[in-house]
C-alpha cells in the first residue's frame, strides 16, 4: 500500500489551530525538535513550551518540517503518535477532539500495542491529565516506567504558577510486589442511592445482564435484590460471611449463585487494610491530584478474578470522575489493555458513553474476532490503530474495507502477424496458366482496462506484520492536527520513546517508593536489625540461650 498523505492545513485552521508545513508562521523564538522522544517531550511540556513562540517538528528522512504555534499547542494539547511512512509527516492526536471518540488499538501479541499505550500514558501524565491504566495481563515495567516518568516530569504548573510534577502510583495483584491496594468498597460514593451502587457493582463484575439479554437480566435482578438487602458495608470478607449466614430459598440461591461466587472470590483475594492506610487508593483524591495510576489485576496470577477486579477498578474511576470532575470539558484518560479480559457489557457501556463524561478511552485488543458478535459496537472509535493482523482474519478484512478501493488501469497489448501464400495452376483449351502469390499482414494494439481494486492487499498485511515499528492509523472524522484524509495511514514509530535502561530505572524507582505501598510482611524477625551487643552481654546471651534451648529440647516435651 502506498499513499501520499498531506495535512489539510485549512481544515485545521478552521478549528482554530495554527499550523504550517514547510514554512514558518511567525518571527518569534523557534524550538526545533526531531525524533519521537524530543517531539513528544516538547508538545507535552507546558512549562518548556512557554519559552518559545513556535515549534518546528522535523519530519522523517529530511521531509518538510511542520511548524506549530505554541498557543495552538497550549489551547489544543497534542500527543505525538508516529510518522507517516511515505510522507514522513508527524502525526499528532489532539486530546480535545481527535481522541474524543475513543481510540482502538488492534494487534497480535508482541507487536507493540502495550508499548504504544505506555507512551501515550506517559504523554497524558506529562500533560497533567489524570490517567488510569488497567493492564489486565500482568505487572508490566514498560507501563510503570511510562506512568512514572510522565508523572515525575516538571511539565505543568501548580496553582501558584510554579513548575510542578505529578504523582504516580500503582496497585498490582501480582504476588510478591510492594503495592498500593485498590478496594472497591473503600471508595467514596456520597449521595449515591444504594440501588445505583448495587447496579454499578453488578455491571462492573459483568453480571448486569446487558440491555438485551432478558434471561440474564432475571439473574441480574435477583442478585440486585439480594445485595440491596445485604448492602456493601465493610469488606468483601464480611459480605461473604453475611451471605453464608443468610437463609435463602432454593430459587434465590440458584439465581444469585454467580454474583455470590464472585463475592466469595473477591473476598479470598481481598487485602483488608484500614481505610486511612497510606497504601489505600482513593480514586477520587487521585483524580484531584491529577495522578497517573496503573492497576494490574494480573490475569496471569489471579486468572478469572482479574476480570472482576479490572471491572471494579474502572467502575470506581468512572464513578469518581463523574463525582469530582463533572462535565465533559474536564478530562481524564482511561487505558484498558487486553480488553478481552474485561467485562464485555461494561466495556460496551464505556465505549458508548465515555466521551460524554470527559473520559478519553484508549483500549487494546488482539483482533476484532475477540469481540464476538458485538465487534461493531465495540470497535466504534474515532482513532483506530492496527499493529498487525493474521492473514485472512476479520481484522485483515477490516483493514481492506477501511482502506477502500482505487481505480486501477490494467495495461493490455496485442501483436499479430499474418502470412498468406497461394499458388494456382489453370489448364484449359487455351493453355495452362500458373499463378503464385504471397501476402503478409502485421498489426499491434494496446489499451487500458479500468477497474476498482482494493487499496490494501495481502502483501501489505504481511509487510505490516513483518515490521515491528509500523502500524496503520485511521482517524475518522479528522480533527485538529489529524486532518490527514479519510484513508488509513501506514506509520513508522521512528524509535522508542523510552529506552530499556530508562524503563528499568523508572520501574525500580516506582518499586522503591514504599511510603504509599503495602507489602506482605515476611515472618522474618527484626532481631538482625538491632545493634551489636557488648562482650558482657554476649556472654549473658550465651547463658540465656543455653537455658532456653535446654527448656525447649524435645525430650522435655509431652
Amino acid at each position: 500500500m502506498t499513499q501520499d498523505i498531506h495535512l489539510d492545513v485549512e481544515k485545521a485552521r478552521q478549528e482554530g489551530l495554527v499550523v504550517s508545513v514547510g514554512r514558518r508562521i511567525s518571527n518569534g523564538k523557534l524550538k526545533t525538535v526531531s525524533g519521537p522522544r524530543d517531539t513528544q517531550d516538547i508538545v507535552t511540556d507546558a512549562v518548556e513550551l512557554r519559552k518559545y513562540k513556535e515549534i518546528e517538528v522535523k519530519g522523517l528522512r529530511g521531509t518538510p518540517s511542520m511548524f506549530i504555534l505554541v498557543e495552538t499547542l497550549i489551547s489544543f494539547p497534542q500527543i505525538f503518535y508516529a510518522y507517516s511512512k511515505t510522507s514522513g509527516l508527524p502525526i499528532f492526536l489532539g486530546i480535545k477532539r481527535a481522541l474524543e471518540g475513543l481510540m482502538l488499538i488492534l494487534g497480535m501479541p508482541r507487536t507493540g500495542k502495550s508499548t504504544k499505550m505506555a507512551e501515550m500514558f506517559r504523554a497524558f501524565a506529562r500533560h497533567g491529565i489524570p490517567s488510569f491504566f488497567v493492564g489486565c495481563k500482568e505487572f508490566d515495567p514498560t507501563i510503570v516506567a511510562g506512568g512514572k516518568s510522565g508523572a515525575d516530569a516538571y511539565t505543568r504548573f501548580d496553582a501558584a504558577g510554579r513548575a510542578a510534577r505529578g504523582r504516580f502510583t500503582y496497585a498490582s495483584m501480582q504476588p510478591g510486589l510492594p503495592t498500593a491496594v485498590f478496594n472497591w468498597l473503600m471508595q467514596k460514593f456520597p449521595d449515591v442511592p444504594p440501588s445505583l451502587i448495587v447496579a454499578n457493582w453488578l455491571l462492573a463484575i459483568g453480571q448486569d445482564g446487558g440491555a438485551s439479554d432478558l434471561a440474564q437480566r432475571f439473574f441480574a435482578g435477583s442478585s440486585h435484590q439480594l445485595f440491596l438487602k445485604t448492602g456493601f458495608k465493610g469488606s468483601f470478607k464480611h459480605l461473604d460471611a453475611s451471605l453464608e449466614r443468610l437463609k435463602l430459598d432454593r430459587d434465590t440461591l440458584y439465581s444469585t449463585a454467580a454474583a455470590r461466587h464472585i463475592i466469595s472470590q473477591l473476598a479470598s483475594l481481598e487485602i483488608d487494610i484500614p481505610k486511612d492506610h497510606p497504601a489505600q487508593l482513593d480514586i477520587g483524591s487521585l483524580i484531584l491530584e491529577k495522578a497517573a495510576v496503573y492497576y494490574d489485576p494480573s490475569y496471569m496470577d489471579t486468572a478469572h478474578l482479574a476480570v472482576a477486579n479490572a471491572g471494579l477498578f474502572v467502575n470506581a474511576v468512572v464513578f469518581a470522575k463523574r463525582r469530582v470532575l463533572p462535565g465533559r470539558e474536564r478530562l481524564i484518560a482511561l487505558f484498558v489493555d487486553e480488553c478481552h479480559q474485561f467485562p464485555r457489557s461494561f466495556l460496551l457501556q464505556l465505549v458508548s458513553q465515555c466521551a460524554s463524561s470527559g473520559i478519553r478511552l484508549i483500549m487494546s485488543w488482539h483482533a476484532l474476532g475477540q469481540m464476538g458478535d458485538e465487534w461493531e459496537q465495540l470497535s466504534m472509535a474515532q482513532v483506530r490503530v492496527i499493529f498487525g493482523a493474521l492473514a485472512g482474519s476479520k481484522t485483515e478484512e477490516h483493514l481492506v474495507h477501511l482502506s477502500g478501493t482505487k481505480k486501477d488501469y490494467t495495461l493490455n497489448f496485442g501483436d499479430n502477424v499474418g502470412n498468406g501464400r497461394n499458388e494456382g495452376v489453370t489448364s484449359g483449351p487455351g493453355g495452362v496458366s500458373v499463378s503464385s502469390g504471397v501476402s503478409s499482414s502485421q498489426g499491434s494494439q494496446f489499451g487500458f482496462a479500468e477497474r476498482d481494486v482494493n487499496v490494501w492487499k495481502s502483501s501489505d498485511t504481511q509487510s505490516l506484520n513483518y515490521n515491528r515499528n509500523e502500524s496503520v492509523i485511521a482517524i475518522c472524522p479528522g480533527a485538529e492536527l489529524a486532518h490527514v484524509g479519510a484513508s488509513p495511514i501506514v506509520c513508522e514509530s521512528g524509535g522508542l520513546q523510552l529506552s530499556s535502561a530508562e524503563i528499568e530505572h523508572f520501574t525500580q524507582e516506582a518499586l522503591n517508593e514504599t511510603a504509599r505501598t503495602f507489602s506482605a510482611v515476611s515472618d522474618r524477625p527484626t532481631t538482625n536489625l538491632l545493634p551489636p551487643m557488648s562482650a558482657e552481654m554476649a556472654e549473658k546471651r550465651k547463658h540465656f540461650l543455653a537455658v532456653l534451648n535446654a527448656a525447649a529440647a524435645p525430650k522435655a516435651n509431652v
Partner: protein
Amino acid sequence: MQPWNSGDMSDNPTRKEKCLLEYSSRVRGFQTRTAHLFPELNIFGTEDGLRKCSDRMVEGGLLACSKPTRGQKLYRLSNKGVQITGAPPAFATQPSPNIAAWMLAASRLAARVNDFKFLTSPELNKALCDLGNTNTALKVPIPLILRKVSPTGSNTSMGTEAHLHVFLCELRTAEALAARAGTIIEKLMRTELLRELSDANIFGITIVAPSADFKNSLKTKDLPSETFVEVVEELQDLIVS
C-alpha cells in the same frame, strides 16, 4: 517431668489420659481438631478417638468442657485435673472469650513443635530460675512460651535459637492489639531479667491473628522489636458477629 499427684485418685489415669492431661497443662485447653495435630497425641489414632477419650475424661472428672457459640467443644483441665498435673488453679475455671481464644491458639500452634514450645508452669518456673541464677522464680503475669527463631531469618529449623516470648492472643482490633502488645512489653521491661533478655535479643512477643488480612493490618502498626504474628483461623469461630 510432670509432678504427678494421683495418689488419692481411686482410678489412676491411663497412659493416654496422662498424655492428654499433660498437653492440657501446657496449652490450658483444646479442641479436638487442633489437638489431634499435636504429634504426641497420635496415640489416639484419629480425631474421633481423641474426642471420645476427652469425653470419657470429662465424665470421669479429669477434664471439663465448654461449648462456644460456634465450632467444637473446648476441653480444659478440671479441678481434679489441675490437682493431678500441678497446673495453676485458674486453668480449671470457665474461660472468658479471651482465655478461650488463647487456649485455641495455643493448642493449634503447639502442633508446630519445631517452632513452639508451650511450657508447663513448673517448667517455666525452672527456666526463669535458671535464667536469673536464683532459687525463686520470677513472677510474670503474662503467659510466656519458647519460640524457636532462626538467627538468619531463614525458615528452616536448622540452627534455631529458643527465645522467650510473650504469647498474646486476645480478641481485639488490630490497633488495640498492637497497643496492648506495646503496653505489655513496656511493663515487662521494668523487670531486670526480662530487660536483659531483650537486650540479648532473645525476648519478644508472638501475637495471634484470626486471619491473614488481620495479620497484614497488624504489621502496619507500630510493634515491639521482635514480634511474630501467627494466623489461627479457628479463632474466627469465637468472634461474635
